[in-house]
């Protein structure tokens, strides 16, 4: 089921209503069953896959907990990893791997005809696989006792607000909340509704309306574009993917909030970050912290952090392992997580390079205070936007051509798109800055006077409701569904 639909609104209303009416145990059954229905409304047969993945880690984590033999524990963990990653490789990377293998063999003169596959990528597989892996690894690490109540555990893996596109949740962050019966508070409903309205606004009013524009400019021949066109392409898609994905996270967080369940935040104004390190503490926070704790820090032999606070950083005292090699490997995998293509690997390596450069510059940078922050933002914002080119284009040849245009300022300021494209890109930049200022400065002032804040809420919610319902149409999926 997709969020930007009438079906979801009615489904959510019914689930929330039942949730607050039912006692504790039936609530867990309700969440599990409704999550299966939620997923099944996409393709029912694929719910089996989610269940198999969940049952596998349910059983293995109990076995890990039972055994005191460390070799056997490790063996069970490896089995779980091979099983989960095997599913991911089969559904997501098989075509990529075989196509590349065949191309390689053809280079050596072996003529092999390309294989044809018709594999449908199960919705959200990258997300729920990471979630089940983290559960088993946490049990193995001793961070967590496995849960015997299958409905409780199953609700954690399949919980519908986050099942398809995150946030990727740690068991510790959610299961305890699912296991208790929170007392009903009106603030859950008002806070949840506001988050959902904001999310729908970002998706159905902004993203869905700029999507045709992005499609059009990415269809244009790269050779005909100037440097300003390439920048505009990068920025406009940068805004599209940000609004689209943060919209999903807002709706996910808001939906959970309606049931009194708190999810960790997944975005925090990433485009206002003053360093790349900060950018990754603000963008897709649950993924970057997952990668840090389950890949990067283990590669370095460092102590993991066990919390979704984002950022891929390593303690300053770290002397273990080869930090740079681990950094590049982690980022290449992070790129591949998004999609089976070399363009995504390039995206990852691009970010790894920027982080490495930043670490180097930071050692020699004597600037301090606001000047440093402002200069940081001026550099990070456009370079982060530029990284979206391989994300959207997928042809590395085109990506290199576009980077070259930017570097040598080819074609200068010659325009190839209609004026509206440049104008909307500019206005979206302003919108991001204004929304940050509103959130950080205006809202705290308004909140000092409950009546002023209430009036502000009424006006904003009136507009959001009218616009969201006016534009609510499942015309496009969320971009992160394809990852």
């Amino acid at each position, binding site marked *: 089921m*997709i969020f930007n639909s009438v079906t979801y609104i009615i489904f959510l209303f019914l689930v929330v209503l039942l949730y607050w009416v039912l006692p504790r145990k039936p609530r867990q059954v309700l969440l599990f069953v409704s999550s299966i229905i939620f997923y099944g409304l*996409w393709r029912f047969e694929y719910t089996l896959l989610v269940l198999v993945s969940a049952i596998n880690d349910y059983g293995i984590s109990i076995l890990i907990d039972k055994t005191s033999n460390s070799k056997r524990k490790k063996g069970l963990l490896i089995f779980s990893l091979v099983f989960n990653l095997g599913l991911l490789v089969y559904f997501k990377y098989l075509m990529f791997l075989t196509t590349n293998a065949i191309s390689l063999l053809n280079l050596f003169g072996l003529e092999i005809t390309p294989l044809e596959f018709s594999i449908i990528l199960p919705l959200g597989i990258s997300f729920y696989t990471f979630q089940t892996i983290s559960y088993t690894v946490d049990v193995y690490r001793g961070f967590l006792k496995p849960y015997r109540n299958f409905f409780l555990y199953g609700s954690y893996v399949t919980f519908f607000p986050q099942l398809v596109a995150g946030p990727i949740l740690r068991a510790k962050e959610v299961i305890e909340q699912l296991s208790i019966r929170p007392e009903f508070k*009106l603030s859950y409903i008002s806070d949840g509704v506001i988050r959902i309205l904001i999310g729908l606004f970002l998706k159905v009013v902004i993203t869905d309306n700029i999507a045709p524009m992005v499609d059009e400019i990415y269809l244009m021949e790269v050779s005909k574009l100037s440097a300003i066109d390439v920048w505009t392409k990068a920025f406009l898609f940068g805004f599209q993917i940000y609004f689209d994905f943060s919209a999903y996270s807002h709706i996910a967080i808001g939906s959970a909030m309606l049931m009194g369940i708190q999810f960790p935040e997944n975005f925090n104004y990433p485009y206002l970050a003053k360093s790349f390190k900060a950018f990754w503490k603000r963008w897709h926070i649950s993924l970057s912290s997952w990668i840090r704790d389950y890949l990067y820090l283990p590669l370095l032999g460092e102590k993991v952090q066990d919390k979704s606070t984002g950022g891929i950083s390593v303690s300053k005292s770290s002397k273990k392992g080869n930090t740079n090699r681990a950094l590049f490997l982690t980022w290449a995998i992070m790129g591949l997580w998004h999609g089976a293509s070399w363009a995504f690997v390039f995206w990852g390596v691009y970010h790894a390079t920027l982080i490495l450069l930043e670490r180097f510059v930071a050692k020699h940078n004597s600037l301090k205070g606001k000047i440093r922050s402002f200069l940081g933002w001026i550099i990070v914002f456009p370079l982060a936007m530029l990284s979206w080119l391989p994300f959207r284009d997928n042809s590395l040849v085109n990506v290199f051509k576009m980077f070259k245009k930017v570097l040598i300022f080819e074609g200068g300021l010659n325009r*190839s798109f209609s004026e509206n494209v440049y104008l909307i890109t500019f206005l979206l930049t302003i919108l991001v800055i204004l929304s940050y200022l509103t959130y950080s400065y205006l809202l705290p002032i308004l909140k000092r006077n409950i009546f002023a*804040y209430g009036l502000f809420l009424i006006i*904003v919610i009136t507009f959001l409701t*009218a616009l969201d319902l006016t534009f609510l149409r499942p*015309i*496009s999926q969320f971009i992160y569904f394809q990852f």
Partner: protein
Amino acid sequence: MLSKETRNNSFLFVCTLVGVIFGLAVMSSYENKTDFGDAALGKGTVSYFHKDKSGNSIHFLPKNSYNDFLNGLSIYSSYPKILFLGNSQSHSINQKELNDNTLTGYLYESFISDSILFFASSIPNANLQEHYLLSQFFFDSISNIETLLLPVFFDDFREDGIRESYFGDFSKSLYQIAENNSLAKRINSKLEIWQQKIKSNSNDTTASIENNDFTALNKTTQDVVERKLNDVLYRKFNFWQNRQQIRGEFFTTLYLSRNTAFGISAQTTRKKITSRYLKNKETLSLIINSCKKRDINLILIIPPLRTDIKYPYDESEYSQFKEYVNSFTLNGIHVLDLEDIVEPEYWGYSSPTQLFQTKDYDFMHFQVEGHKVFADTILDVSQNLNNDI
């Protein structure tokens, strides 16, 4: 006694509820029933597509049924034919009176008496790629087309691509351009995609909603549920019926706000967009070559332009454009320069282009007298060219 936190939470809950109710009330109370198809033309300007005495359309808008149009023309199968491809100028009349006709209507009535069929197709802001698709479609579907009349607007050289809003439904014709060039391939694949989309939506019984609204559901179980729910909402609730209108109003307000903020009016210079301009030039060459191959007489028209006030083009860019179109005479193509034929008093006004404005100058559409002059000039030229037309 309730705690302060509980009181505040209750108050904010009420505010949220009130906001949601107000939002729904705003939508329900919306009453403006503007036809956004004609809104850009201005209140005094209407679209008119001429029909013959039997009620068959002789002026085709690609949004309408291509099948009905072709069937209607089948009674003229033995006639020699003239095809006119234009933009909204050819199907819009300023301050239209009851029996006023467009230039295509007048030309049809004049030519038909000589047993020549004049027929037309037009789309607002049509670019050359769209003209290319339509010309190929008509050349392949209708016999005896001897002449193509093609007005080339400097304005339309700023446009790009085949628009789904006009050609999405047309893709049902299963038509594919037979020529082998990269543009034809691109257009064909677009038509195929739209055709697939229509196929996947063909089981829909909820005619009240636009099929495009469900693209993301793509045959999933939710698709069925969503359509049913939409249909129920559409039938039962005002606010749901008003959605399309409100969307139109929203975009119009955005457009007017943009123009007001940046001081954009109908007279603001519209600069050439180089890559689109070049693409349209390349496409015009394809149309010319296609006409040559098929032995179809092509007449390019530099269309009427309002010259009593400053026109919205960069002077040097516009004169280069005219030079470019005129240069085709060297290749044996007739080029008609009709720039000055419509007198200033025959031009009208368009919708306001800014907030707090009632009207603005119209540089594209004229009153019925303009249509008559246009049609008469074509007829004069056709007589001068004797058998060329």
